[in-house]
């Protein structure tokens, strides 16, 4: 009980601190790398909840694919954007807090505090699932029997997104 709480607290601190650094980091590349740390911490929390399948998917999709894509977008956009250097120079914490952040910070903090209050008073304190959860085999079986149609729709969605990304970014090459 106590060990689980300590592990969860460490992971939560890592996740929240790196998410905070994503907001306040001066350089956008640093923000993207802190995003990797935050995603990895969330994967650790999934592991602590015995969701090994979701932890693996989290590392593959978020840490592996999405962050790499974001880093590629940063590199490709920073070459052409000459204003980037000027913008990043005045995006430190002081600039962020001074300019428009107080209102946005209040909005985020009020939301998080209100949701925490709701979760606290909701009375879900008794964990039902003390036993080990589903097996990964059960997920695969359910995914390919009951949810086979949504699964195929998801694959079509990914195909459409891939074709859309190629069309959006390769237009200049076609015009040449």
């Amino acid at each position, binding site marked *: 009980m106590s060990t*689980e709480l300590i592990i*969860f607290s460490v992971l939560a601190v890592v*996740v929240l601190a790196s*998410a*905070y650094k*994503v*907001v306040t980091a001066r350089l*956008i590349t640093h923000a*993207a790398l802190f*995003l990797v740390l*935050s*995603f990895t911490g*969330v994967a650790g929390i999934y592991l602590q909840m015995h*969701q090994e399948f*979701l932890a693996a998917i989290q590392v593959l*999709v*978020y840490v592996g*694919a*999405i962050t790499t*894509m*974001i880093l590629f*977008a*940063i590199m*490709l*956009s920073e070459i*052409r*954007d000459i*204003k980037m250097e000027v913008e990043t120079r005045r995006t430190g914490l002081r600039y962020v807090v001074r300019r*428009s952040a107080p*209102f*946005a*910070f209040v*909005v*985020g903090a009020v*939301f*998080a505090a209100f*949701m*925490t209050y709701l*979760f606290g008073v909701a009375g*879900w*304190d008794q*964990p*039902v*699932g*003390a036993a080990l*959860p589903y097996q990964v085999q*059960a*997920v695969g079986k*359910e*995914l390919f029997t009951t*949810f086979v149609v*949504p699964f195929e729709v*998801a694959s079509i*969605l*990914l195909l459409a*997104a891939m074709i859309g*990304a*190629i069309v*959006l*970014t390769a237009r200049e090459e076609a015009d040449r």
Partner: protein
Amino acid sequence: MIPLYMPLSLGAFLFGLGLWGALTRTNAVRILMFIELMLNGVNLNLVSFSRYLTPDDPRGPIFVLFVMTVAAAEAAVGLAIILSLVRNRGTVEVDRVNLLKG
């Protein structure tokens, strides 16, 4: 097991941090990063409910899997739009993309 409200609160705070960033920053790539952060908080909530309330039901993780699929597709198309924006307008600041402003 830790009480259910703790991972739920972590997800809420992750969402709040992402909301703060998305409302503050004007860089389009950064806004996309904050959207991913908020989606992560929502996923954490879904996983927590699935783990604590219906632990032996594989439908919770499957739902999270579909959310992640949509997030990946959204990130791919969004970054392609940003690259197209950089190519056509020469900026990634959303404040300067005001072509439709009256």
